[in-house]
């Protein structure tokens, strides 16, 4: 499933004294099965961009296309976009309200009108995907689970409707290192095995740099960089904006500054390990 932004602009509180332009003329093409990372300083418009993906916000100007058709053209296209594009917000666990995990995860499919006999299977499959044992968790209250487990319930709720695109806003924020790894592994599996298109907004690039395909860098609503991940990382842009670089690349850049020869744009620990070993030998 693909998404295209054509000249999308968005202004908050348009026509009031506190009007603020949040997106300026954004052009994007996210292909079927692609994994796009979105980075930018606080307040750069990342979350605003995400809310355009399924029509929660409508562009002040420009068009958002889902598989070639304008999602804001009609009520029916908007409904279809909400079903096909799963949005996982910052701290999704704050939005849990069901009295059991089952109820919580089934909420999406029920509201999108899936037949009752299918829903049970959808909930079970989706809980398995995120690593929640169906029998053990289905009757528990989501509110008594740990932070990492709550996050998985929220993700399962979004995945239950089988979206073709999943967009996550700072999905690793507030998770410990083990929880982060689990989440990154889950999304990697969905992307590689089920071909889900992934849009991942983050400040932390080290863990996902080896996995993602492309990178969009926003600053104050403007596109500052956009292209294949390694090409965009190799430019000095992220450093200039004070954004995070993969640890491997931070080391590579540091060594280059000291006049050392480093090949390409290393983003994994393996890659930088090889570079350092060939330097010191």
């Amino acid at each position, binding site marked *: 499933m693909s998404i295209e932004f054509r000249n999308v602009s968005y202004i908050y509180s348009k026509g009031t004294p506190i009007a603020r332009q949040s997106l300026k003329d954004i052009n994007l093409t996210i292909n079927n099965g692609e994994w796009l990372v979105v980075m930018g300083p606080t307040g750069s418009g990342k979350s605003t961009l995400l809310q355009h993906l399924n029509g929660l916000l409508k562009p002040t100007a420009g068009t958002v296309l889902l598989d070639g058709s304008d999602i804001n053209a009609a009520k029916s296209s908007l409904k279809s976009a909400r079903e096909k594009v799963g949005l996982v917000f910052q701290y999704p666990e704050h939005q849990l309200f069901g009295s059991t995990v089952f109820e919580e995860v089934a909420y999406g499919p029920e509201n999108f009108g899936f037949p009752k006999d299918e829903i049970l299977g959808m909930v079970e499959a989706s809980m398995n995907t995120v690593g929640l044992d169906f029998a053990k968790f289905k009757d528990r209250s989501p509110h008594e689970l740990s932070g990492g487990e709550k996050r998985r319930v929220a993700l399962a709720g979004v995945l239950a409707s089988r979206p073709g695109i999943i967009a996550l806003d700072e999905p690793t924020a507030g998770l410990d290192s083990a929880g982060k790894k689990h989440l990154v592994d889950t999304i990697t599996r969905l992307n590689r095995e089920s071909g889900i298109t992934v849009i991942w907004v983050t400040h932390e690039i080290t863990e996902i740099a080896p996995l993602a395909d492309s990178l969009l860098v926003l600053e104050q609503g403007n596109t500052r960089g956009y292209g294949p991940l390694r090409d965009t990382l190799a430019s000095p842009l992220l450093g200039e904006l004070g954004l995070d670089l993969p640890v491997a690349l931070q080391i590579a850049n540091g060594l280059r500054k000291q006049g050392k020869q480093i090949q390409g744009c290393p983003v994994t620990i393996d890659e930088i390990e090889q570079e350092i070993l060939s*330097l010191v030998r």
Partner: protein
Amino acid sequence: MSGEATLKNLIEVCNLEFSYSDKVSEYRVLKDINLNIQKGEFVTVLGPNGCGKSTLVRHLNGLLLPTAGSVKVNGFLTNDEISLSTIRRSVGMVFQNPDTQLFASVVEEDVAFGVENMCLPRADIKIRVEKALASMGLTEYRYHPPHRLSGGQKQKTAIAGILAMEPECIVLDEPTSMLDPKSRAEVMKAIRELNLNHGITVIYVTHDTSEALCFDRLIALNSGEIVFDGTPKKFFSKPEYPARAGIIVPPIIELVERLTVHGVALPPDIKSPEELVDAICQLNSEM
């Protein structure tokens, strides 16, 4: 951290136990915690999700009360109701999620709320609010409604509200998990300055290992027990300490270990990319 003032215990936690219970079972969140925090200390509390970090720090100004054992702030017991307002004036708290802390219609009002309740002259309140806004880089947003700010800006507003009250001790529960690296560094710098220049005691909860490296003292918690109390340098010097705390070793530490296995002679306490670059350049110049 210097001078005689640092010899005084600000917070004393003695055999602290805490349990949540429902009709069916009892869940012990904290088990026999003993801890002293001195005035002026710069402390981080590190541990995985659900290990009891937030539960522990909520005891430090009486938001939660011990099931057994005691917590004292400046000698006052937190389960003595008469002392609570004194304790809460000494120990200010910034929570994980700014959305649940902000409520005023503009940023400036939100920052002023706490300090307005301290019966200070109006002019003093104004100065403190100005200072707090400036130190968090929020001056240009002072008339904006908080709900229209980004996540990071909201969190800075919450921190500014506590800073304006100038407490003796500030407890921050993962305040930067939603900020970009630049704002994260700004917040860390502001907190460090509060500690160095004003002697404010800082207790900072995180599971970001690179942040934890910036503190003087690291307390690691796992399954409701303190599993390490010492310097961050010592914590990362042996793999058994992070393992005991359920912390995955950060990539930089893993890389140093791998290079060492391959016979690269690196100093043992490298904890940042810059330090590794320096060490490698040193090696090359010796060869």
